[in-house]
């Protein structure tokens, strides 16, 4: 009967739409990351920057540093200076200190964020402890460097920006997720 065939064909097509939209929901995850990177929105910074820029001596930008512990994170964590003044194009290093006060080895992951978010695309990290996870033995203290260049094309109205790190305890999820995190954080 042709009506049966029509219905069957329609149902198959509609089911394909359903499956495709289920997939689209998951596709939104990489699309979101790509959009944030492409437009430099959401304060997300990119991976390792390998370019070099001429230093713009005429201009100064204040860079503030913030360090926050995520819930349940017990490490002592902070920058060595609250802020620095840099010239766009110049490469600057800042050290962050982390100390594990517990009696267990722990693994941590730092997630960076830049405010104002429109400046994120102009904040280049050439080296960062956030690219890898940090393992600290009981009572161990380390200095972790971040080396960055402020892009010369930073919009003129941005005179001051903030680099914030949130430190997460990832000890529990270390083995399986470690690889995935690494590849996602530093593409």
């Amino acid at each position, binding site marked *: *009967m042709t*009506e*049966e065939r*029509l*219905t*069957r064909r*329609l*149902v*198959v097509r*509609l*089911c394909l*739409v*359903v*499956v495709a*939209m*289920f*997939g*689209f*929901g*998951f596709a*939104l*995850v990489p699309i*979101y990351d790509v959009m944030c990177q492409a*437009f430099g*929105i*959401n*304060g997300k910074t990119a991976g390792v920057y390998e370019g070099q820029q001429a230093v713009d001596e005429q201009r100064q930008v204040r860079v503030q540093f913030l360090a926050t512990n*995520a*819930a349940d994170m017990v490490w002592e964590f902070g920058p060595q200076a609250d802020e620095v003044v840099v010239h766009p194009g110049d490469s600057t290093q800042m050290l962050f200190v982390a100390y594990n006060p517990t009696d267990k080895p722990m693994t941590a*992951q730092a*997630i960076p964020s830049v405010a104002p*978010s*429109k400046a994120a695309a102009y904040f280049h990290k050439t080296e960062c402890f956030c690219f890898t996870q940090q393992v600290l033995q009981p009572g161990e203290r380390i200095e972790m460097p971040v080396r960055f260049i402020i892009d010369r094309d930073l919009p003129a109205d941005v005179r001051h920006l903030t680099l914030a790190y*949130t430190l*997460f*305890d*990832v000890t529990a*999820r270390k083995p*399986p*997720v470690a690889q*995935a*995190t690494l590849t*996602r*954080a530093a593409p």
Partner: protein
Amino acid sequence: MSAVIDPGHAGHGHAGHDHHHGPAKGLMRWVLTTNHKDIGTMYLWFSFAMFLLGGSMAMVIRAELFQPGLQIVQPEFFNQMTTMHGLIMVFGAVMPAFVGLANWMIPLMIGAPDMALPRMNNFSFWLLPAAFSMLVSTLFMEGGGPNFGWTFYAPLSTTYAPESVTFFIFAIHLMGFSSIMGAINVIATILNLRAPGMTLMKMPLFVWTWLITAFLLIAVMPVLAGVVTMMLMDIHFGTSFFSAAGGGDPVLFQHVFWFFGHPEVYIMILPAFGAVSAIIPAFARKPLFGYTSMVYATASIAFLSFIVWAHHMFTVGIPLTGELFFMYATLLIAVPTGVKVFNWASTMWRGSMTFETPMLFAVAFVILFTIGGFSGLMLAIAPADFQYHDTYFVVAHFHYVLVPGAIFGIFASAYYWLPKWTGHMYDETLGKLHFWMSFIGMNMAFFPMHFVGLAGMPRRIPDYNMMFANFNMVSSIGAFMFGATQLLFLFIVIKCIRGGKAAPAKPWDGAEGLEWTIPSPAPYHTFQTPPDMSGEHEHRKGLAHD
């Protein structure tokens, strides 16, 4: 799927022609039925049960908010009440009520013997009691039920969720399956089972709005299923979709959720638009003004609903261009919505109007939904939204579009078609009493929320500043009145089923459509020989010579 469209089965309706066999007897009739009218009835009763359950949760909320301070419930339980009230009303009351109306009326309106996929229809209904038993059972579990708001933002619903969240996730999966199957069934019925000569532009608007709603459902319910699946994986399988520690992002949750969530609000209102577009012409005794523009307006609203989701997220820190885009796209929805409101008003213009209960609910729908639309425009203005965000102004807004919008649309439909369903006229006096009590109660409950919201009262908090006390007391009294009145509705419906003045085939003089050509109550099997519609004018032609 193949079992569902088993050819032997769809032929069932035809096998029984000539001798009108009635329904089977006893409980198994309802468990095994594939009859669209039985399934429609079950959907409607289920939805009413959920309406009372979700409503009693609203009563708990309003009782706690009757006075400032904590009187009746603990904040933890209050959070569960606001969450469950929202989930049950959205997924348990409003959506199944419209699916019930679709089941009952779409085959009657297009001259089809039944839905295209009757067995799948049975399955999609019976998933719902399972889903909601599971959802409601979480309230009795250790740690309590979902307490993170009906929008279940991560990480509240992942890292900080009660243990029962997994049951919540599976309940959402089941509801999603049910809605998707229901939507596929509606599309297959409308596209394949229309009577000969019933072209798309001759379809009643209720059928049109449901066709568009069904497409919205199959587009966004899978996204909802996807987002809860991501939550499940974050909670149990160590992924980090929404956890910044593992490279994910909680804001991503809000994007995916609202990509589902905004079309969802149109899923809850478009079928009501269709029902009101049937009822107003019937009681104004004039054809619907601007049928074609109604169809295009509905389609435009559905399209726009996909590109406005971030207006729920103006305060998360999206860039200025994003705020502007989503603001203008949202404001644009006012255009097709305005077309519809003006068409309803023009239909009433110089009509010979009478105000039976369905018409009262339909007229109130037009007026009050418009108020809800206007507060929506205020919320759409990105710079102003920073003040309104997460205040009672938002609560007032979406209750104005959902209560006198979706719920009044359902009441209007129920009164309009009850004579067809039961064969009896409902009690008009009690019906009018139900309307006026609902109308007054609902406005008393929700109008003051605009004021306390603008003054800064946050939503989802069990306590509030003393200065909001009077308005909250008025809101609570109105809410109790609205809630209690719904028991009157239950009484009216039962009374109408049990007896009353016999209803003629067409109880309303101005009513049009195939459903009025069959006797009241509608026989168990209808349109086994499809009516020929080729002689009928298309709506727009009907209007031209009016």
